[in-house]
């Protein structure tokens, strides 16, 4: 099975425009694949490389659902910079993603 935990290692920085986003999926379903694709696209366009995407597959690690209180799949959690924000869906509605996660990097 395709390894689904993909971490892009980025130099640690405390600057407030560095985003750490965690995407929860449940197996390689069409929605989940779409979400990963859409997310990468949005991040490239809006965050100009200042981001890190963690993909958590709950089918492999079900115990991680509790921590962020996940019930819907896919769910995207903005972990950094604070505040924590959460949105659900396959991220096809780009505007909702940007607004929901407040993805405008700090100027």
């Amino acid at each position, binding site marked *: 099975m395709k390894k689904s935990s993909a971490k892009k290692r980025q130099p640690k920085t405390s600057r407030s425009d560095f985003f750490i986003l965690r995407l929860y999926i449940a197996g390689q379903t069409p929605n989940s694949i779409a*979400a990963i694709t859409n997310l990468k696209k949005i991040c490239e366009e809006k965050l100009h490389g200042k981001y890190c995407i963690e993909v958590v597959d709950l089918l492999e690690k079900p115990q991680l659902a509790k921590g962020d209180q996940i019930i*819907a799949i896919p769910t*995207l959690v903005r972990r950094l910079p604070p505040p924590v924000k959460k*949105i659900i869906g*396959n991220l096809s509605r780009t505007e909702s993603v940007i607004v929901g996660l407040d993805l405008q990097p700090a100027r």
Partner: protein
Amino acid sequence: MSSAKAKPKVGRTSLAKTPTGIQGLDEITGGGLPKGRVTLVCGKAGCGKSLLAMEFLMHGAVQYGEPGVCMDFEETEEKLTANVASLGFDLRELSKRKKLLVDYVSIERNQIAETGEYNLDGLFIRLAHAVKAIKAKRVVLDSVEALFSGIADSAILRSELRRVFRWLEDQKLTAIVTGEAGTHTLTRHGLEEYIADCVISLDHRVTEQISTRRLRIVKYRGTSHGTDEYPFLIDEDGISVLPITSLLLTHEALTDRVSTGIPALDEMMEGKGFFRGSSVLVTGTAGTGKSSVAANFARAACARGEVCLYFTFEESPSQILRNMRSVGLDLERWVNKRLLHFNAMRPTSTGLEGHLAVIHRLISQLRPSVVVIDPITNLISASGSYDVKSMLMRLVDFLKVQQITSMFTNLTFAGDPQERTAAAVSSLMDTWIVLRDSKPNGRPRRELYVLKSRGMSHSREARELIVSEKGLELGTVLRDHAQATTVEGTSAVAATE
């Protein structure tokens, strides 16, 4: 004669059942909830649905060896632990022993932004993970309505809920789902449409300042269930539902006899006293000695080594002990020997159903062979306009099925003809003893006579009741009591003086 207990009908299409362990509920449902299916429990806030669901899990874990999972959408861990502790269960302990697992699912109050298609696989995964972790056999989802405030797309939510219910059944888990009552529908969001097998509705209403709780089985496929509402009580032991009693009048008529405790009265009843398992009514105006008659009856039972439960609604147990000592009756020794148990309550402390639930519970715990209820007068009046007869009938029926000999005292009012006690009551009674004051020729006197006693040729005499510190005695025969209702001072009365 066939057994009076309602046995669940076992047919080819009837469902297997999972016992809930909740007092009275398993009787009403003929064994419990449908095994491996989803049951919906609905009701307004505070009606007891979460409690019922948690008790189902607790008993499952502790009594039936079935670990349980609770997906809790409403309460926090602290609140749930505290609520459960108030029932005498230790949530943390059970979790440690892997008998119970609670997953607190917190739903955002404001709906989360939706950016495209999604489903509720996260919920599924958490549920499946929890079930697998402790090999659960029981599941509670409490309360599913909370999901509707967090998830904007109710079409997705509904279809996912249907999927959850099907999953639960596929996994052969017996589940309870709680739902909030709607104004025109059973549940606010119409969940009852998705639950095929069993729906239970809880109600909590306040009538004339007395609160009563009722449970109703709205639907139970494959089981013939009563459509009545059953009263229930919530106390420190949890929920008690008043059990169904056989409506078929098939309880056995016993032929054993038990002494009344007053030898002369036994003589008036073929020399043997009451039939065991019969119901006895003792009526009289104030001060005629009803409680003394009841106390003698209780004493006689204890002297035989039998357990007697004495429910008192007017006097405190210590008052009764003191009063009876003054008529030569030492009840305290039977209390000390734990054969005589008093239970005192104010009639207005709860509704009639509440009293009956307490009576049922104590009877199951103490297994008496004799029960005294002294008096029932205020219970009848405390229930207001409610249908007293059906409640009393349930009680009397229950006592007969348990083969308990019962005695009820009732106050009648001076001026009323003796026989006009609440008609609702007397027809349920096998034996009716009347006490009354009379003043023939100006001398006050108490009388006792047996107005009726089914199944035996009882004396029709009225005798004088003499109460002293030596106890109760029956004196001279006064007359045939059929003439007792005639005006005082007739020649028949004068002749016996």
